[in-house]
């Protein structure tokens, strides 16, 4: 399958793209040029559409990769870039007939609940009033609402710290993405599916595990 992976200009996104590239044809895109990724402004519908031709699924890893820039209006541009970019990517993928999008989000959205709570996907995210947290939250909101309208299937995978045993190991992250790509997202009639993927640490309770017989 040909997969478009966003956020590939970050260390985490580049790692994910490389791992997925072992089983798929990966089109890695990022905001900046460099490495093997193609620079694409996700807020530009025509440019995004041109890269979706022949794509079978999208892995949207921008929320994992985002970071606040420097200078005036850095916070505002981060919020705008992530939110508008996610909207354009999701709606253009739907228009292009791409059936499935995997959104990579973060369990940081639950960091301010007391540590003794057993957090699951049934819990309401509590974003901090900070640009990174709100941008990540809005990426989820945009994908969820477009999915709710039945236009595309979205699986949202919330990771803890990537590459950490007490977070989400790279192996578990890739397994969860592969499973989401392989299995239809629509569960119980819903086009939006949420999974928490934590290999250890405070969010490990109730974390998604690949079914033993179907382990990829």
């Amino acid at each position, binding site marked *: 399958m040909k997969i478009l992976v966003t956020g590939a200009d970050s260390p985490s996104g580049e790692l994910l793209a490389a791992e997925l590239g072992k089983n798929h044809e990966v089109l890695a895109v990022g905001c900046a040029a460099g490495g093997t990724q193609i620079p694409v402004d996700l807020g530009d519908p025509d440019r995004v559409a041109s890269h979706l031709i022949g794509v079978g699924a999208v892995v949207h890893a921008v929320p994992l990769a985002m970071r606040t820039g420097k200078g005036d209006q850095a916070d505002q541009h981060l*919020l705008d870039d992530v939110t508008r970019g996610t909207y354009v990517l999701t709606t253009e993928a739907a228009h292009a007939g791409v059936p499935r999008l995997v959104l990579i989000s973060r369990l940081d959205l639950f960091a301010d609940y007391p540590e003794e709570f057993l957090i699951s996907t049934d819990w309401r995210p509590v974003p901090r*009033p900070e640009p990174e947290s709100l941008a990540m939250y809005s990426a989820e909101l945009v994908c969820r609402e477009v999915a709710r309208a039945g236009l595309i299937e979205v699986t949202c995978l919330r990771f803890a710290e990537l590459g950490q045993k007490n977070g989400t190991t790279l192996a578990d992250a890739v397994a969860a993405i592969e499973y989401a790509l392989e299995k239809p997202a629509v569960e119980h009639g819903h086009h939006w599916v949420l999974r928490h993927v934590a290999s250890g640490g405070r969010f490990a309770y109730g974390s998604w595990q690949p079914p033993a017989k179907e382990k990829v």
Partner: protein
Amino acid sequence: MATVQSGRVVLFGAGGPVGAAAITALKDQYELRVTDYRPMAEIASEPSPQGPRRPVPELLGSPHENRVVDVFNWEQVRSACEGMDAVINLSVLRSDLIPAFRVSAVGAYNIAMAAADCGIKRLIHTGPFHTSLGHDADYHNDFQVSEDIPLHPGDNLYALSKYVGGEWTKAIAERRGLEVLTFLYCDFLTRTVYDDQIGHGVGPFSVSIEDAGEAFLYGLRAPTMPSPYEVFFINAPTPDQKYPPKKAKELLGWEAKDQFGQLYRKT
């Protein structure tokens, strides 16, 4: 105490018809800082782009103030909030991709963050309630819909960008000691009923522009809210029972004066 009985109020995006009605309702009670992306003098000198039945804002003189503010610009928003007792966010851009997110979403973030930074306690945020969005998760086929239901904007640019702005505002309100009243609207009519409207029915989520303006007075003066983010339907209580505006009466003491009986009764 978030109640603002008197003092200084800044309005963002005040150049539209709702801004015009808000200015009329508030100008004798508060000192207003009226802002829009375009100069208010320019806006006030032109007919409303939304048609001849829509009001144009009155250009206020001293002690009020008019100011050009791009709500995407943090410094301009922060500066406009300084010295204010309350904030009203009327800003919106509906159909163009880039401004929709920069104004309706990031603008809302800037306004809520600036209000919190300035120690302002009450913010009235505004947005649309789309009664039909063309997908099965909207509320088009429901009755007795209440104000606290989560919005389902689908992929509609206007609805979704305002929705994100509202959710960010809510997150800021819950964590920064701000009290936000969100007013939702759908169809606007006028207090004057025109002959061509009589007997043609009325939409289930309608309000006169004059009533919409007066609701801000009630919003500023309402007592402390039960939670940091409260949503209100700002519409007339029409007898269809689709979107009854209960909370506005209960928590703000506001009820639409114009209830459009001439429109929904047979002539």
